[in-house]
């Protein structure tokens, strides 16, 4: 599992060494690989009829998690916002 993260760090190192060269193809390659991988994910889903059948349930679960997570991060941001502003007030 951690091989993938190791490869990312190798990329960071090599990218840093090559920082004076322009590498215009990186972003294009990233985009194409993402397309390929999402296509493969779709294929994987298409092969399994039971996943297709449960798509409505999966969708509801996905939406519930998304609403919860945006709500949770908004609360945390609200806490930091009040904290930052309070400190500013004290300094003034």
């Amino acid at each position: 599992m951690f091989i993938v993260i190791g490869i990312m760090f190798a990329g960071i190192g090599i990218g840093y060494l090559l920082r004076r060269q322009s590498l215009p193809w990186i972003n294009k390659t990233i985009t194409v690989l993402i397309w390929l991988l999402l296509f493969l994910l779709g294929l994987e889903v298409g092969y399994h009829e039971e996943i297709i059948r449960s798509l409505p349930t999966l969708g509801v679960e996905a939406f519930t998690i998304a609403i919860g997570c945006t709500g949770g991060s908004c609360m945390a941001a609200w806490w930091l916002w009040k904290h930052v502003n309070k400190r500013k007030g004290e300094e003034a």
Partner: protein
Amino acid sequence: MKGSLIIVSFFALGVWFGLLNWIPSEWFSGDVSFYALCGLMFCVGLSIGHNPQTIHNFRTLNPRLMLLPICTILGTLSAALLISLVLPHRTIPECMAVGSGFGYYSLSSIFITEYKGAELGTVALLSNIAREIITLLCAPLMVRWFGNLAPISSGGATTMDTTLPIITQTAGQKYVIVSIFHGFVVDFSVPFLVTFFCSI
């Protein structure tokens, strides 16, 4: 928005091909997607290492606002934990793995498919696309209810690219650097947190 539509189309196209069995399933065993994932992460690494200027610019940031990515991560993960209590079919780590996508739907769904299978991968894809769309649609309300930092937190890993325009419109131009810094840190945390929650 256009980028997400293209990505969803590729996913839909894959589903279509798979359903009709146009591509025999033996052609694409797990190996192909694993190598593609390695190639993707290598390129993501290259693009980070290649651009040290981005990291340099963060020095001008208000140190207190550097806490924002941590707030986003803690807020999201605790919400995912609570949500798992109301979703009977999902375990706590599964919900937290989906939540740790932080809107980075391409990478998180690919990782989760690799580790946990296509079903949870699909939940991750839909959930993280929904997170991006909710941020794009609700940013003005978030600013009103929870302050200027809320749309940045809600945008998660997308605040350095897709949701940056709406953030500068609703929270103000002042928050561009915070937003980019936040996107950068949260983005970077995605592979670690997703791998972590998939392995427990």
